[in-house]
Every structure is written in structure tokens, then in C-alpha cells.
């Protein structure tokens, strides 16, 4: 991260312009977020007269009621189960496929890889109606797997691409030497490739997790029981029930995006890495 340009002039109109511009964008981003957080601490009446400022009386009760309600935790639990299933399955299935594409030469390899990566172009919405019928026929409607399996399938294209490129960088000589010493491909995969690939596994895992955690359309179609709803569905229902009691809805929104923000701060490196390496395809 070297400097692209350096300015040492005491006053530079460019710097002033830049500062003002950045400040405006920062306000544009921050205000809705802060208003949501603070709105959850207000009463409905105060929200109406004082939507921007700090609360006059901090209504901790709004947050406490939600945290002690059980409903909030159930939504988080459902989301956690679905996302974890999706991540674990994606990592297993995608890393095995990526390993094969990276290190095993066979007829049709590149054709199969192109087939799989076509998935990057397909709009999920096209598949969603037939997917509903298929999941129903498989008896998976209203189950966590009914949501997780299609999510795994849709995340495979990107995951396999990212993992394969990383696996290819593991020196071929290492595999060769291991094979000569009587190690099998599978053992090599298990004891060399996977441990060496922790950073990229973390990246793919984080991206898959965030996508699954935030997903709406697939759970909406596949789940009918409130008790199974992940949080994006649950919060829509909540908003419907409390339609104009914005102080409660804002507190609920804040509490549901909190895990996302914590995850982002923890895994920020992996998210950005996945974003940029996924973008600049090789």
C-alpha cells in the first residue's frame, strides 16, 4: 500500500474537495445505520419528534424484550444451522472437486470444469420454481437440508474456481514426491493440501457463510414453518406483525445485523480477499 501521490502543499483545493466529498459519502452511509441503532433506544413518540438525535431516555427495554423473547434466538439458531450446513458441505464437496481439477489429469477435465463454472452465469431465480417442486418431491420441503443443499449447489461454481487456483499453486513436485513414497492421492489431499490451504478455505467458507446467512429467496420458497425460519424471513414476519411500531422493529433489525457486523469485523480480511480474488479470475 504505497502512496500513489503525495501532497505537501499547505493548502490544496483538491484536498479540501476530497475531504468534503468523503464526508458527504460517509454521512450518506452512516446516517441510516446510526438512526437504526439509536431508534431502537427510543419510544415511538420520541422517534417521531426526534428521529436523528440521541435518545432522551434510553429505552433499553426495547432491546431487552427482544433478547429475552426466545424468538430472536430461535431465528439466529435456524440461520446458524442452515449456514453451517451449507458451509461445511460446500467446503467438503468443493475442495474434493477442486483438488481433482487441480492435480488429476483426465480426459474431459476442462470440459467438466467449464460445465461446473457455467453456474456463475445462471440466475438462481430461473431455477427456483422447479427447485421447489424437486425439493418437495424429495421430501425435503420444510427441512434445513431443503435450503442448504440448493445453496451448496449454487455456491459450488465460485468455490471450486477459487480453491482450484489455490491448490494449483501447491508445488506439483510435492505431490509427486509423496506419490513416489507410497502416499495416495487421498492421503495427500487430507494431510497436505487441506492443511496448506487454510487461508483459502477460510475465505471460501466466510463468503459462503455470509451469502447463506443473508439469503432470502430460497428459504422463502422452501420453508413454510415459522419455527424453521432463518432471520431474514423472521424479521420480515416481525415487521409485518409490528407494522408501524418502528422503535421495536429498529431494535430487532439492530440485533439481527449485529452478528453480521461482528462476523464482518472478525473475517474482514477473508471477505475482501475472496471478493478480489474471485473477481480477478485466472
Amino acid at each position, binding site marked *: 500500500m*504505497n502512496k*500513489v*501521490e503525495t501532497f505537501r502543499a499547505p493548502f490544496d483545493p483538491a484536498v479540501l474537495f476530497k475531504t468534503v466529498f*468523503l464526508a458527504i*459519502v460517509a454521512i*450518506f*452511509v452512516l446516517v*441510516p*445505520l446510526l*438512526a437504526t441503532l439509536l431508534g431502537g433506544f427510543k419510544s*415511538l413518540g420520541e422517534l*417521531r419528534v426526534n*428521529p*436523528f438525535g440521541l435518545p432522551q431516555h434510553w429505552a433499553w427495554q426495547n432491546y431487552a424484550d427482544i433478547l429475552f423473547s426466545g424468538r430472536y434466538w430461535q431465528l439466529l439458531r435456524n440461520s446458524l444451522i442452515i449456514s453451517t450446513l451449507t458451509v461445511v458441505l460446500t467446503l467438503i*464437496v468443493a475442495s474434493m*472437486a477442486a483438488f*481433482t481439477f487441480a492435480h488429476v*489429469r*483426465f*480426459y474431459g477435465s476442462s470440459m*467438466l470444469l467449464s460445465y*461446473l463454472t457455467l*453456474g456463475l*452465469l*445462471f*440466475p438462481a*431465480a*430461473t*431455477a427456483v*420454481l*422447479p*427447485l421447489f417442486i424437486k425439493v418437495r418431491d424429495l421430501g425435503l420441503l420444510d427441512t434445513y437440508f431443503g435450503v442448504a*443443499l*440448493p445453496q451448496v*449447489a449454487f455456491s*459450488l461454481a465460485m468455490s*471450486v474456481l477459487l480453491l482450484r487456483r489455490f491448490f494449483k499453486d501447491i508445488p*506439483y513436485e510435492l505431490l509427486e514426491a509423496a*506419490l513416489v513414497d507410497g502416499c*495416495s*492421492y*487421498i492421503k495427500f*489431499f487430507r494431510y497436505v493440501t487441506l492443511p496448506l490451504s487454510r487461508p483459502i478455505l477460510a475465505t471460501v467458507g466466510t463468503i459462503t457463510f455470509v451469502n447463506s446467512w*443473508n439469503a*432470502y*429467496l430460497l428459504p422463502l420458497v422452501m420453508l413454510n414453518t415459522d419455527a424453521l425460519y432463518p*432471520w431474514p424471513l423472521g*424479521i*420480515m414476519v416481525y*415487521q409485518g406483525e409490528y407494522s408501524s411500531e418502528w422503535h421495536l*422493529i429498529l431494535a430487532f*433489525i439492530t440485533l439481527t*445485523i449485529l452478528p*453480521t457486523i461482528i462476523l*464482518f469485523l472478525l473475517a474482514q480480511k477473508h471477505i*475482501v480477499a475472496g*471478493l*478480489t480474488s474471485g*473477481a*480477478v479470475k485466472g
Partner: protein
Amino acid sequence: MARPIASSPAMGVSPASLSTRAVGGPSWDGRFTVLILFLPPALLLFTLFVVLPIGEAAWYSGFNWNGFGRPTHWIGFDNYRFVLETRAFWLALRNNGLIIAVSLCVQLPLALTLALMLAERFRGAVALRMLFFMPYILAEIATGLIFSFVYDGDYGLVASIWRSFGAEPPHLLASTDTAMLAVLIVIVWKYFGFHMMLFIAALQSIDKSLIEAARIDGATRSQSLRHIVIPLLYPTIRLSVFFAIVGSLQLFDLVMPLTRGGPADSSNTMVSFLYNNGISRMRVGYGSAIGVILFVICVTFAFTYKRWFMRDE
């Protein structure tokens, strides 16, 4: 360095021919085991849950079918005719066009400007990057709900600004004139940070000596920007445009909490139109026809774009 496996003639290698190589060298059997154990799960899941459903969408689109039992009432291309005769479909298509236009004309220039500012190192640059990227991390549903509060005519931020001027606040999301505009603003808010991060990553991988050399040769800041930095960013810009368009075509989650496509279909996207007509009423044939139209648009765009603009990538 010779690669035994790479140099062997792919499939038809017998273990015997390999045994003439180094003792205990890689054998075909090992590869075969990996192939039959490691590939099928991915291929099976992908085929079953991605490729087949898309094929089935094409098949179902020929039926008048509510999703129960088996489809029997074949009506050929009538579903497509019904879709294309619906005014709401063209509205949705127009809205997707608007989203693309705003993404390309507002969002990307904004992202590029910010990236150029924030790729330099100064105090607060990293914090600002994270802040601008934050909306992208939030779920579309949460974003939509936050903004339905912002736009709320009684309690929202926009309303209170209106009131401070002594005017009666509008219900932006409830009016056919303003609903789509309100959605477009949220789209910019949510996604500009993503493109900014792409540009920052690209800027940081630019070889600084190029710019220094230009400076020494007397290029001004804006000259080096125009003639060196921006051209070096072209691959990323092309990619960003690609993501922006593909993403715009598939937008759904953000529309639902804001307007559900309303009022009077004025803020539908193709996917929310598909959802409102195909899925919530289980008109499988009709919905599938919308899905197939979306598919054709996306795939045609992707291949054309790749052929024309991303040949070298």
C-alpha cells in the same frame, strides 16, 4: 521438470506402462479412485439442483400447471405470450433497465472516485473503506427494512426533514411516481462499496514505478490518471460493469422489504415479478416462462459481453 502424469496419454494408461517409470511412481489406480470419489458429489449436486431445474423450467413453461400432480395441460408457447402481453412485465423489465443505468452512471463513477481517493494511505483511509463496504455486508432484507424506516412518511428521516421545512411529508414508497426512485437510491447505498473495493484492490496492484516515471517525465497528476491509471484499470472496470449488470438483472431481496414490487407493480424487478406471479400463486408454467426469459437475457448478455469486452481475461 517432467510431469509423469501430464505426459502420459491421459485415459488409456495401463499400470504396466507406468511401471517402466520410477518404481512406485504414480499409478492410474490412484487417480481413478480420486476421480470416482471426489468428483461425483459436486457434479451430482450441481446437476440436480442447478442444471436440471433450469432445464425443467423450460419444460414447465409449456404447461398450464399449478404445481400439483404432474403437468398435463400442454399449451405450447402461450405462457410466453401471456407474459409478454402483461404490462407489468414490461414495467419490471424497464425497472431492471433503470437499475442497470443507475449502476453504470451513478454507482460505478462514485465507486471509482472513492477508490482513487482511498487507495492512497492517509489517516482514516482504512476506516472509511470499511465503512463504505459495510452496506454490502448487510443482508438485503435488513437494508430494505432500514430504508423503509428512512422513507416512512410518519416516523422516517426523510419525513422529518420535510417537516422541518413545514411541509406535509410524502409517503415515497407508496406512490407510483417515487417508489422506484427510492429503491434506486437504496441500490446505490448498498452496492457502491463493493465496486469501490474491487477498484482499490486493482489500484494497489498497479506498479507504482510507472506513475513515478511519468511524474519524472513531467506528467501532471490528472495526466497520469488519465493516461496510466485508468487504462490499467480497464480490466477491473469491465468486470465491475459485468457484475453490476448481472446483479441488477437478478435484484429481488432488496425490493421485497421496501415495496414488494408495488404500488401497482411500479417497482417490480423481473425476479419480484416472477415471485409475485409465479411462486406466491404457484402458477408454475407462467412463472417458469418468466424465469426462462430472465435466463435467456442473463446468459445472452454474459456471453456477448465476454466475447466483446473480456476476450483477454
